[in-house]
């Protein structure tokens, strides 16, 4: 049923893409136009070797098991840029993919104005990509990435892709190396598995430097106040506050709690080798666990083919709740269940191949062998699925125009 639904959508998405491509070609013909149109998309299918849990990109509400799903990776994005003069420009990006509400309603991913003060200094205001990761901005642009999708063990930790606010980015040459420093502030609201998650008072810093030809290092740190609008957690917190275990309730409380995310990443792309690695840490003061996520990817180009391998892991460092409610009791069990509900540790070994089939089309196949602790990042986990090794095979066609 899921498959049927997604395949109905795909021709529609492709039709729209073709129409937009034609419009883009026309826009390009009028070479003096201040508008530019570009787009990206993926048509992808995923299946797994085991029923009883669905493979999703964290945040989604439906995914793949032994019956294939086209709803995990398929997406279409359109971007319109307007350059008013050499300093002022504006960009709007609309993206349709399976969102955190489980539907395909197109969302305004970006809508910002940019002031390019000097060739190296730019200010932006509006809605823009939230730079939590090395490939945050183009995590949905399959064509831009070697992998079929960014490793979910790392990218699943923060299912927030954009924020509303402002940023400043400064690029300069330092001792012959290109260095970029960025700062941003704002807030964001998104749906994660039908639950509204808000980040307020968000402030972040980024720095990247090209150490040598093709080798770039990136550092990032974000802090803010997180609110998870989950009615049952709030009810549990209220209940606990009426018992001698109010402190347990305070630890679970998901309203306006401190959260941070720190990352260090390396990317290498020179000659035939491509490599990437990120090491990240999420910390919160609520029932969302502190986690460590990392991956390393290595690939080697052979003509139009790039075989690659990725190792990745998400670890739970702390569930952030010291359950002092006496056991055995129903309340103790409920607190444990909630505290562990967002803990999704797993390890993945991934092997894939990118084929640059056409000038703006890449075809990719990837096989991930995932070892979960509990249900890992699988969704709708049934009893008996826990602590398994599950194979996930994916095929995708990525395009840009």
């Amino acid at each position: 049923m899921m498959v049927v639904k997604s395949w109905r959508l795909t021709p529609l998405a492709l039709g729209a893409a073709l129409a937009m491509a034609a419009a883009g070609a026309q826009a390009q013909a009028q070479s003096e136009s201040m508008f530019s149109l570009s787009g990206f998309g993926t048509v992808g299918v995923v299946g797994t070797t085991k029923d009883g849990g669905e493979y999703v990109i964290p945040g989604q509400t439906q995914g793949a098991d032994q019956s294939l799903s086209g709803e995990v990776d398929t997406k279409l994005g359109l971007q319109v840029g307007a350059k008013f003069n050499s300093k002022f420009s504006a960009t709007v990006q609309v993206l349709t993919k399976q969102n955190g509400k489980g539907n395909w309603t197109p969302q305004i991913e970006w809508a910002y104005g940019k002031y390019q003060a000097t060739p190296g200094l730019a200010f932006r205001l509006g809605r823009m990509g939230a730079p939590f990761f090395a490939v945050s901005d183009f995590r949905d642009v399959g064509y831009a990435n070697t992998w079929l999708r960014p490793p979910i063990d790392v990218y699943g930790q923060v299912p927030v892709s954009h924020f509303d606010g402002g940023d400043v980015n400064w690029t300069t040459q330092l001792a012959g190396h290109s260095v970029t420093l960025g700062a941003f502030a704002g807030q964001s609201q998104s749906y994660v598995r039908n639950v509204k998650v808000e980040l307020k008072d968000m402030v972040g810093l980024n720095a990247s430097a090209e150490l040598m030809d093709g080798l770039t290092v990136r550092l990032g740190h974000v802090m803010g106040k997180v609110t998870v609008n989950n009615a049952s957690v709030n009810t549990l917190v209220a209940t606990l506050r009426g018992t001698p275990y109010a402190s347990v309730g305070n630890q679970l409380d998901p309203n306006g709690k401190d959260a941070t995310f720190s990352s260090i990443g390396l990317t290498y792309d020179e000659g035939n080798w491509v490599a990437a690695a990120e090491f990240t840490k999420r910390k919160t003061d609520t029932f969302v666990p502190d986690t460590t996520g990392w991956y390393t990817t290595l690939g080697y180009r052979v003509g139009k083919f790039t075989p690659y391998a990725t190792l990745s892991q998400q670890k739970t460092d702390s569930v952030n709740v010291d359950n002092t409610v006496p056991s055995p009791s129903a309340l103790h069990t409920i607190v444990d269940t909630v505290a562990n509900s967002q803990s999704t540790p797993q390890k993945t070994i991934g092997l894939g191949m990118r084929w640059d089939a056409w000038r703006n089309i890449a075809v990719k196949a990837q096989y991930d062998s995932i070892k979960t602790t509990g249900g890992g990042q699988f969704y709708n986990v049934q009893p008996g699925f826990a602590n398994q090794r599950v194979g996930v095979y994916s095929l995708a066609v990525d395009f840009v125009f």
Partner: protein
Amino acid sequence: MQFKMNKILAGAALLVAAVAAQAQVAVVVNPKSSVGNMTADQVASIFLGKSNALPSGNAAVAVDLPENAAARETFYSKATGKSSAQVKAAWSRLVFSGKGTPPKELGSAAEVKKFVAANPDAIGYIEKSAVDGSVKVVLSVE
């Protein structure tokens, strides 16, 4: 037998020479630009979107030849060391992170020359044989 071999070698040499001649590409700027010679690295950073500044400090306005132009393939493989698919992927990373706009694509060497001659901060590349007084060569790649 010996004679035959020589003929083949001479033919191969001619072929190599012809390919080399065809492969010569000149990177050109506006004749009034203060930019002198540029290194392949400087040119590559502009055409791969790593920097949008010319050595003069002004923002560069880069222009491309069509994707099927032989000079384009030569230019990118020699000046940047990247295949057209790699260049496309690099630009898609910039476009879809809002960090840049790829060089405007023009239809022919004549159009590139016309554009460069009319824009003080323009930079483009054309077959060396197409170079004339309307543009200034800052780098030759072959």
